[in-house]
């Protein structure tokens, strides 16, 4: 059976759902080996369809840029003769994949939304206007997959575990993290994993309260346009778009966002899009399944109240 490596993705000591998605894709290809650098995460991995856990020891990857992770994976690719390595499409995940592709002389595909048993991937390119099927033709298939692409299947029993001590070169350890400031987190779901995202733009005029209130009655994540993050109204980590995050939720609600191409690049593949904008000519309406021409300060509180009333 072919061996597949998946790189465990975790935030604040919690294995993220995207790890379960990687496992679900990997299961169709072959034996699922989850690679983890923090032994404390192992117990959480039985939740997902993972056959074997490889705990990499002796390297504190949090101190460096992606070099040591890529090097460890490269060594595992050769010891396991892996046919594929699946990694979450975060900025760091893509960098790990890039270095790994160089180190293993393998082809790389980024931002896929699926991979099948024959290692054929699906990608949505040009802001979601074109669907591309592609495959790696040389070496191991190095593929990064977007979060929220598949419903993770549950694990059946505990995976086996093994330890691996990679040899890390001095070059891979260049570039040292001297201190960190973790992203400020509220109680809301992670933007890329949420099934509903409510985003605010310049139209909020800095007041995100109505956006957050709607998000909270729906259990949704809050996003922002670049105009809003640039103005300092919302943290950069919440930016949706070309230079922010790409989201693909069941429902995306754009409030006071004009729909510039760079914003669309990050949300166009959402299953349903709703827009609330004062300007009936705003380009965001071109892709909205439902658009309300109106003031978000009237429409949002009314919608929030209507949802609360339905729940009561």
């Amino acid at each position: 059976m072919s061996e597949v490596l998946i790189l465990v993705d975790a935030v604040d000591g919690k294995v993220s759902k995207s790890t379960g998605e990687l496992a679900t894709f990997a299961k169709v290809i072959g034996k699922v080996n989850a690679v983890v650098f923090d032994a404390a995460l192992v117990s959480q991995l039985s939740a997902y369809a993972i056959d074997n856990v490889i705990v990499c020891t002796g390297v504190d990857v949090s101190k460096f840029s992606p070099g040591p992770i890529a090097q460890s994976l490269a060594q595992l690719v050769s010891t396991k003769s892996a046919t594929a390595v699946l990694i979450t499409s975060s900025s760091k995940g893509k960098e790990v994949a890039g270095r790994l592709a160089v180190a293993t002389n393998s082809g790389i595909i980024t931002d896929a939304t699926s991979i099948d048993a024959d290692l054929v991937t699906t990608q949505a390119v040009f802001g979601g206007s074109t669907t591309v099927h592609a495959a790696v033709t040389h070496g191991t298939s190095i593929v990064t997959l977007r979060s929220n692409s598949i419903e993770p299947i549950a694990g059946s029993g505990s995976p086996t575990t093994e330890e691996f001590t990679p040899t890390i070169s001095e070059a891979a350890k260049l570039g040292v993290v001297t201190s960190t400031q973790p992203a400020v987190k509220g109680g809301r779901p992670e933007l890329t994993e949420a099934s509903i995202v409510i985003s605010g733009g310049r139209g909020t005029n800095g007041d995100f309260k109505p956006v957050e209130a709607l998000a909270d009655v729906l259990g949704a994540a809050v996003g922002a346009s670049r105009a809003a993050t640039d103005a300092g109204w919302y943290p950069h980590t919440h930016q949706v778009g070309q230079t922010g995050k790409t989201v693909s939720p069941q429902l995306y609600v754009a409030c006071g966002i004009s729909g510039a191409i760079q914003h669309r690049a990050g949300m166009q593949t959402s299953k349903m899009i709703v827009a609330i904008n004062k300007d009936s000519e705003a380009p965001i309406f071109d892709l909205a399944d439902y658009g309300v021409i109106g003031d978000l300060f009237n429409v949002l509180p009314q919608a929030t109240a209507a949802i609360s009333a339905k729940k009561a």
Partner: protein
Amino acid sequence: MKIAVCVKQVPDSWAEKKMSGGTLDRAGVDAVLNDLDEYAIEEALRIVEANSATKEAGEGSGHTITLISMGPDRASEAIRKGLSMGADDAIHICDDAFAGSDALATSLVLSKAISDGGFDLVICGTESTDARMSVVPAMLAERLGWAQLTFAGSVAVDPAQSKVSIARSTEFGIENMEATFPAVVSVIEKINEPRYPSFKGIMAAKKKSIAVKSLADIGLAADQVGSKAAWSNVKDAVLRPARSAGIKVEDGGDGGTKLVDFLAEKRVI
């Protein structure tokens, strides 16, 4: 200090893009300097200005900024734009054999040009707006065996100590990182506001040198680049039906309630 900035010419983000034979059809659309690379050029200029006695980039600053670009003939337009912003000179790696190169081949070509140039720092954008892979800077660090300081929201350089430090900004927050030269840096678009080329800059750029190099000049063979060496293959590309605009209602005082009714009917809430 010798700084290289990697810049790419890309189709205009506003243009409609199509596929042709498995790759992006570049012939039919306007081409521009990748806007994320303008931030890289601007940052290089600011690093030089902050560390030179004359407070100005260019001759006399004691530092040089070289643009490096791999691309077809007409990529020279994008290079000129970068030179008119204030970079000193450029290397344009241009060869018919490059057509269809993937990120692996691109990083191989760029790494050759970089290691031949004796640079202290290489600065890239975080992403080319056409391929949107965001992997070339990390691949360069891997190939060159240099420190990788990517996704920088701020950069500080101390030439006397050969030290560079950045605040790396990712979805997980900020990591402050440092390294000694040589290093590969990539910058995010929050880092600065790129300057517009001045008239003086545009005139000066006409006289600046662009060294055009072929595949052979950088010491690579034809089978190492181009579509034959692209290790991923597009099987098919289908245009998705354009997202058609749906229902649009004017808020007559009940816009919020109507919206909720619609969402409930569609069972999304």
